């Protein structure tokens, strides 16, 4: 029983997609189910995912030039790791374009605080329940979210110096 099968069996209705690619199990779930899944992964003794290794997001706007269809635009990707069982798990949360919002995991794992601030800063995805969701990498006066696919790479908003 790999962790992915346990999660699938537990949260069957919530799961949009689940597949294995190059040995990595990944499950895509709806945004509403995230807190329950995270609680489940952390508390159940035989899973015991005590490490939230990485939390990031991917923007699938116009993915692969339109050849591969994607119903949703954003995916927030969580990488979990268990120290005791030494196994890994990837949970992806699908978010559409209109109001990308997902629950915050700050109270389960302390590192989620900064990761979520960075995802908000780079992608503009809101995290409900985050203590202070400010920008972490860019400066406050920056407009827009740079890692979105529709933000051109060298559109500068300089604080001082020439306005190029």
């Amino acid at each position, binding site marked *: 029983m790999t962790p992915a099968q346990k999660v699938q069996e537990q949260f069957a209705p919530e799961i949009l997609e689940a597949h294995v690619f190059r040995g990595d199990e990944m499950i895509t779930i709806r945004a509403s189910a995230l807190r329950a899944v995270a609680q489940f992964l952390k508390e159940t003794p035989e899973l015991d995912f005590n490490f939230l290794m990485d939390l990031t997001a991917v923007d699938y*706007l*116009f993915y692969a030039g339109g050849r591969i269809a994607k119903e949703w635009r954003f995916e927030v990707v969580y990488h979990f790791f268990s120290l005791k069982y030494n196994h890994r798990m990837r949970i992806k949360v699908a978010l559409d374009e209109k109001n990308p919002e997902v629950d915050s995991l700050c109270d389960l794992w302390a590192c989620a605080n900064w990761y979520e601030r960075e995802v908000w800063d780079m992608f503009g995805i809101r995290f409900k329940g985050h203590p202070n969701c400010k920008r972490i990498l*860019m*400066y406050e006066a920056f407009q827009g979210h*740079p890692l979105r*696919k*529709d*933000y*051109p*790479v*060298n*559109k*500068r*908003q*300089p*604080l*001082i*110096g*020439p306005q*190029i």
Partner: protein
Amino acid sequence: MTPSHASANFFTSKLTDALGWARKFSIFQYPFVTACCGMEYMATNASHYDQDRFGAGFPRFSPRQSDVLFVVGTISQKIAPVLKTVYDQMCEPKWVVAFGVCTCTGGFYDNYATVMGIDTIIPVDIYIPGCPPRPENVIDGLIKLQEKIQKGEQSRGLYDPRLKTGRPAGMQQGYSIEGQIKHREP
């Protein structure tokens, strides 16, 4: 008294030379270190490629006590105002050394987050290219700086990036064409 070259009579030219000589061998540098060039700056300061042989071995971490501003490593848009404030708070006579290609022209980080060359915000005296420049390059840059100090020159003037000391306005534009993502229609 900015030393002028036009009709420097015997006394002032001798004094300028003496001043230049004195300043040349006692460079107190403010290492404004941010990124990978910092590693080569450490190597240049350490005993193998010793910078102290040229009198520049003593970094001062306050702009009040330093006369050369070593800008080492990429300058992002967020830290540009800090660099400008530190430059303004340095006492005269002051020189600026752009250490590494990120400070000279922004290097290969032609994106929304990087200042493409610090001479768009402060006047620069010596450009040391290289990513990171080898310690020998740095020492060569230092010697060129010393010659400039000996002659008493200083890249002066308001840093109006478009006209006096900044690069020509054309060069200011985001001149990399290839790296740009064509605007995607959803």
